[in-house]
């Protein structure tokens, strides 16, 4: 469970988020939506603990974020950020295994090995495991990163998964693959998933609850089906209602 209380974030005097509160329960998928520059990625970076809040507090389970060490936090929550390119010749397997190796002092165990292969299989990348990462397409790279991020918190029972525009490079089939995996993790392992999305129709189908952001403030929030509606979307995105298809 993830709870944010009245969080604000400002950088060099410019307020990017103000007074955002949200609660995501165990087994829930929350989508963060809004126009460009509304503060979606910033909110995600606050929720990941990467940005220091100007005001407010965030609880993961029953503990404050500030009480976790970097290492403890890395075992509980994983973040899939936008496009991470690597200029060095790593194989797909090596990139995926970074999710498990970072916290260990010894090498990969057989168990780790199996988990990585299983996750590469889950993201349908296992047939390319020996390919060089830099030779993959954007969508394929994104799927390898997904496997890496899942490997990081695979042992957890109430992990937190944060996704920043995870579908931007994925084709339709793999967009649904991604959220099938998320739904599965929510149901079987009690994960909490928060994702930034642009595709409103996808958000309506795959997420339980939705937050609309506008200029750093919450514009609307609630159950996805009740929140992603023509009136809200048309007024937030400044569109005529006949231009909105959801």
């Amino acid at each position, binding site marked *: 469970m993830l709870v944010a209380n009245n969080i604000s974030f400002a950088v060099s005097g410019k307020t990017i988020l103000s007074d955002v509160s949200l609660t995501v329960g165990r087994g829930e998928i929350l989508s963060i939506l809004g126009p460009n520059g509304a503060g979606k990625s910033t909110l995600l*970076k606050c929720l*990941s603990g*990467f940005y220091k809040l100007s005001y407010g507090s965030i609880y993961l389970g029953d503990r404050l974020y500030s009480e976790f060490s*970097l*290492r*403890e*936090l*890395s*075992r509980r*929550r*994983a*973040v899939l*950020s936008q496009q*991470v390119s*690597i*200029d*060095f*010749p*790593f*194989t797909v*397997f*090596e990139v995926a295994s*970074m*999710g498990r*190796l*970072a*916290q*260990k002092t010894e*090498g*990969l165990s057989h168990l780790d090995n199996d988990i990585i292969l299983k996750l590469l299989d889950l993201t349908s990348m296992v047939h390319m*495991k*020996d*390919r*060089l990462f*830099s*030779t993959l397409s954007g969508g394929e790279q994104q799927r390898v990163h997904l496997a890496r991020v899942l490997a*990081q918190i695979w042992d957890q029972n109430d992990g937190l998964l944060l996704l920043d525009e995870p579908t931007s490079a994925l084709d339709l089939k793999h967009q649904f693959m991604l959220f099938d995996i998320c739904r599965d993790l929510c149901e079987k392992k009690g994960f909490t998933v928060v994702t930034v999305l642009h595709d409103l129709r996808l958000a309506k189908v795959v997420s339980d609850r939705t937050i609309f952001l506008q200029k750093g403030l919450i514009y609307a929030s609630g159950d996805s089906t009740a929140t992603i509606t023509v009136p809200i979307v048309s007024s937030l995105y400044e569109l005529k209602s006949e231009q909105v298809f959801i």
Partner: protein
Amino acid sequence: MPIFSLTRRQGQISATRRAFILVCPLLLVIFLFSLSIGAISIPVQGLILGDLNQLQQSVLLNIRLPRTILAMLIGAALGISGAAMQGLFRNPLADPGLIGISSGAALAVAISIVLIGPATGFLGLYGLGLAAFVGGTLTSLVILRLSKISGLFSVTHMLLAGIAINALTFAGTGVLTYLSDDQQLRAFTFWTMGSLGGALWAQVFVSASITVPAIWILVLKARQLNVLLLGEENATYLGIDTVRLKRTIIVTTALTVGAAVAISGLIGFVGLVVPHLIRLLFGANHQLLIPLSAILGAGLLLLADTFARTIVSPAELPVGVLTSLIGGPFFLWLLVKQTSGKL
């Protein structure tokens, strides 16, 4: 990327073993070769069987062996510092020489030579090492700060910053050259060309006492360096204290480069060429890259130094000139490759 590594075999252990099986004997062969040739040649079989006459023994113990070991230590130091810098800057073109760390260290050494006097004995060597370390660290920090201001570690910014820093330190050494007397000038000029001439056991011990722990620290940090290539943000998500990691890498590298520069002067391109060769052959995993860069760096510099002291014998070529002669064209080739596609 080369075609042959498009689908590199996964088997982690077999790849590691293959790499070491290839590189270690190479170093051994170069080592024996280097011990054997010179003004007084020492037969290899005599070396192995311990069957040497008085003169050969004394040449081996007092001249050949310290120089050979020193060349390997300096080569290893340059190799690992190149590998670590490239990992830290997430940029395959970072090299202590190109981005100005070596010349920063060199300026500090020049200042101490001209103002304090040439180094003698352990204390003097450590003193020069310390000066080089301070110079190297300062320039690394400046470059790191500059690349942070520009937002990312872009090749252009880093190389331009390197040009600026190299120009500044060149001006500094120019002033010192003007101020120095004839003897200082000569010592200083030869030193900047890079040479392992006149190697003594004292230098070997000083160099070893810094280089060996540095290799050990960097090998320990290898896995974190891999993750750092995902970017600082993602490394943080994976539980790595990036500020501490960067500080450790910078201090270790500046210390290693400092020790190398203080003893042997400016030897360019080893730090750039060696990690590249390893990546082309065995991939980018730092757990492999760092120890192999140490071994190959040692072998390459030893080979270069062996040629430097034999091809114009009884005179001696500065080894830095030789490595630059090979490294320059290699670097141009890398630049062309990078502009025509991803490395």
